[in-house]
């Protein structure tokens, strides 16, 4: 049962990663007991599971995911929302409007209009139908302020860190509120533009160096340095 690559080695689609009794994880596929990479990325082994952390990928909705989307259309029954997935998502008006919803009397654009950004949760998706969203939970709904940063969806777990250690640190150090959409969009809202700038820098650093170890400490150091530099001016 050989493994053909070391952990964190760069592989391209079609590279043979492992043979024999292994389980195919993200960005890999298995045929005839052989596991191949199907995306450009870094190999990782997790017991019997072989997977590739793709350097670039697109978002595939999973029920329960928090996502940030852009309203692209209002229809009589609800809204069409772009969540940067292969399919446009739907948000039903009857799930948003309190009590009885009547398409002929309710003014939907007054709730969400085209161009609004919303935080929502994926409630259903199975590839045969468009993803369904919901905003019926505290913290969901229209985004009123802040800055959006886009990262590759595969880097989101790194931004969150182990049990949220990375986001927790960024929130503490910069004093910004971070809302992480699983679809690769991160909303940052801080007390000042300066706080937000530092938080964005931190995210960019994580995206660039996501494969290195001890990243949390490096980012902490960078944020503190950046703060000091600004204070001394």
């Amino acid at each position, binding site marked *: 049962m050989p493994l053909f690559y070391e952990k964190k080695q760069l592989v391209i689609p079609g590279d043979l990663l492992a043979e024999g009794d292994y389980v195919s994880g993200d960005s890999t596929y298995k045929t005839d007991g052989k596991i*191949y990479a199907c995306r450009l990325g870094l190999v990782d082994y997790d017991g019997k599971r072989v997977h590739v952390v793709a350097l670039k990928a697109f978002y595939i909705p999973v029920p329960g995911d928090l996502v940030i989307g852009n309203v692209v259309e209002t229809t009589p029954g609800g809204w069409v929302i772009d969540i940067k997935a292969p399919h446009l998502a739907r948000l039903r008006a009857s799930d948003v409007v309190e009590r009885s919803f009547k398409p002929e009397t309710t003014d939907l654009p007054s709730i969400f209009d085209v161009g609004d950004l919303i935080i929502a949760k994926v409630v259903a998706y199975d590839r045969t139908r468009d993803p369904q969203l919901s905003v019926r939970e505290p913290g969901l709904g229209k985004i009123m302020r802040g800055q959006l940063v886009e990262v590759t969806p595969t880097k989101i777990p790194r931004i969150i860190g182990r049990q949220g250690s990375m986001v927790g640190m960024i929130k503490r150090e910069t004093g910004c509120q971070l809302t992480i959409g699983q679809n690769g969009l991160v909303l940052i809202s801080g007390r000042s533009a300066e706080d937000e700038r530092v938080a964005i820098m931190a995210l960019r650093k994580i995206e660039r160096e996501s494969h290195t170890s001890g990243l949390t400490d490096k980012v902490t150091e960078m944020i503190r340095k950046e703060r000091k530099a600004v204070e001394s001016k």
Partner: protein
Amino acid sequence: MKANKKKPKKEGEKMTSKKSEKLIDKKGIRLDGRKVDELRPVKMEVGVLPNADGSAYLEQGRNKILVGVYGPKEAHPRHIAQQDRAVIQCRYHMAPFSVDERKSPAPSRRDIELSKVIREALEPAVFLEYYPRTSIQVYIEILQADGGTRCAGITTAALALADAGIPMRDLVVACAAGKAGGKIALDLMDTEDKVGEADVPVAFMPNLNAVTLLQMDGNLSVDEFNTAVDMAIGGCKKLYEIQKEALKSKYVSEGVKEE
């Protein structure tokens, strides 16, 4: 160019024997100084277009090709969507300035045909069944043409698809072999293609050892054909190494180091 091929061939029937001698000299050196089993100098670059989801650029001899990829995203118009898989919308297009005589920018019969064969050469490599009802758009722009653009287009398109993060079974790499000046030669350029006797483009998936495109234009004996296919696959394997490097180097330069 293949489009102009039919005519000059008929007119040049008599010339063939004379010109054939010139295509490869006594020492086995071709018009551009290559040996019969030598590729043209190749350069590949990945991620050259920031606005596209994936992109790649290739130079092979005097060929210059740019490919942009979008998707998978909602298929438009709606009726082209398939319920059980994604569709690849492929456009092979030659720029008006890509050839000696200005080419009309409107898609020609040849452009449409090549779009189809390139699409069919790429389809087996992509996991289309993962993303039903969507479309993946592949735009292949030939900026400068010097023979073998369909092959170069496939090689570049595979890089752009991989760059877009679209899951693939393997990269696709294509190369032609043919007969020019009475000899089987690798990677024919424009003159060899037009004046020569035959051209065999082959697209190949190196890790799966599978051919996804095989065409022949002209006349070859069975033995010659087999030699040409073997030679083309050999060329594909060499190009694959360059393709690999191109794909990896983009990310190495972005700070991801191989450890």
